């Protein structure tokens, strides 16, 4: 009995320590954003009063508004397109299963192994010929269709009852109506999971926009944050405020969709 008690206590200690380590850097970022740079480097761990000063300094020296709007525009458009196109495909591969489609699916999975640095240069040349540099379309095209998201939808389509499809067909719905009216509403948690993953990946994508967004007016939040460290002297308060602004959208999306995200992943791992 005491042995299990001790094991239990150990478990709580481990979990508490790991949780603290997980949260600490983010807490530190939050605190740093409200303090002057000098206080940050002194190791201050309590909220300060310099938040507004940091805010003014950041907005005065960097195009935060443009970068924020760009990041939202790119990430939202990419997420919408990706959800539609990948869920259509996942549904198609599973519901209309045959050998030919399965072979195509296996080939698509190989795209998971293609490293982005390898396709980056040909894509850059293609997109600069097509005048897609510095455009939203240029940002979203390479990552709309990804094997990972298609696979998630295919897995969840597996649990979609065939009786419903047959019944809907008898009721006279065509195949696309079945997809839009029956499949999408029942697969909300898969959509939520796919949405969380796609939005986060799109928002966080750094390499591709760094390659194609050449003008200051088309940069993203991660690019703006990275640019702030280019200078010789770093103002930690201002820098951490920028990091905070860059992290907030993904953290909010995660919290809002957390529950359905976990459900969606569970469906996909099955």
């Amino acid at each position, binding site marked *: 009995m005491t042995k299990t008690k001790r094991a239990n206590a150990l*478990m709580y200690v481990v979990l508490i320590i790991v949780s603290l380590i997980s949260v600490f850097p*983010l807490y530190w970022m939050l605190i740093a954003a409200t303090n002057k740079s000098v206080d940050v480097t002194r190791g201050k761990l309590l909220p300060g009063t310099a938040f507004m000063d940091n805010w003014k300094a950041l907005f005065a020296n960097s195009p935060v508004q443009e970068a924020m709007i760009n990041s939202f525009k790119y990430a939202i458009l990419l997420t919408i397109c990706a959800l539609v196109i990948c869920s259509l495909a996942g549904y198609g*591969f599973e519901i209309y299963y045959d050998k030919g*489609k399965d072979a195509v699916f296996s080939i*698509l999975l190989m795209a998971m192994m293609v*490293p982005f640095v390898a396709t*980056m240069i040909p894509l850059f040349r293609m997109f600069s010929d097509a005048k897609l540099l510095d455009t939203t379309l240029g940002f979203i095209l390479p990552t709309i*269709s990804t094997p990972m998201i298609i696979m998630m939808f295919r897995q969840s389509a597996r649990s979609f009852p065939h009786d419903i499809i047959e019944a809907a067909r008898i009721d006279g719905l065509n*195949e696309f109506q079945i997809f839009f009216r029956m499949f999408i509403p029942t697969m909300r948690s898969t959509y939520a999971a796919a949405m969380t993953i796609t939005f986060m990946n799109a928002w966080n994508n750094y390499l591709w926009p760094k390659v194609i967004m050449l003008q200051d007016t088309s940069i993203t939040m991660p690019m703006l944050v990275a640019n702030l460290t280019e200078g010789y002297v770093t103002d930690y308060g201002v820098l951490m405020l920028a990091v905070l602004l860059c992290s907030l959208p*993904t953290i909010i999306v995660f919290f809002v969709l957390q529950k359905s995200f976990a459900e969606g992943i569970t469906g996909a791992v099955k």
Partner: protein
Amino acid sequence: MSQASEPKKKKMSLSKRQNLTGWAFLTPATLMIAVMSFWPMIQAFILSFQKGKGNNLRFAGIDNYVRMFGDKVFMTSLWNTFFYLIIQVPIMLILALILAQMLNNKSLRCKGLFRTAIFLPCATSLVSYAIIFRSLFGVDGFINSILIKFGILNTGYNFLGNAGSAKAVIIIALIWRWTGYNMVFYLSGLQNIEYSVYEAAKIDGANPLQTFFKITVPLLKPTILLTAIMSTNGTLQLFDESLNLTKGGPSNATITMSHYIYNVSFKYVPNFGYAAAMSFLIFILVAILAFIQMKVGDKRD
């Protein structure tokens, strides 16, 4: 006869039509992957046999591939990437497995709180966390100020200015960012295992270590394989951390392959052919490692 065959014929055409509809569902996604992934990959392969600055290219056989192995910076980047892979991926996956098993315990309180806290790092953008860690471990950063306060150091240690410690910081940062992500996959996998299996093991007197190795690991094998392949793939393509945490320094000591390829393509005088050759090597490595992992994963059955 004709009456009997008519409905059959109608049904055939119906299933054929459905089959075609199926292709319509998956064509947009398939075409996009073909154009945005496979076609550029073929282009990169052709490009890897070409030489020249910018868009002024001519064929040069296997020169680029030969050059790669004499390029000290590239060899360093290759070694660094494998170093991160060998140290970081196993530690992270084992840690994630242990945490998942702990959180799967039904009698655990505050489960949601722990899970959220541990997953939170994954909601931070890659550039953000790289910069947070850069600031924490800077000469005038938080870690140094604490070490000085407690009298462990007299002056700030330049963690990012020394090759060994800079690599350690990258590994710590990677573990911090990705452990929770892998843990979520394991937690989901564990939910598909009947909890009664664990209760039975407990009654039979199995200790946590035994349950871990005899139940959790074998039953989660497919999920472990998935996360191992994903992490290997991600680590071989490491870019944001190398660029923003250490800037590849000191003097390229922590640079990763992707970072070096980026520099060769866009930072220095663009040498697309050479960069393509190096990126093709990454592709081959990813493919080989995925193949090995799948083989190993299969054998333990």
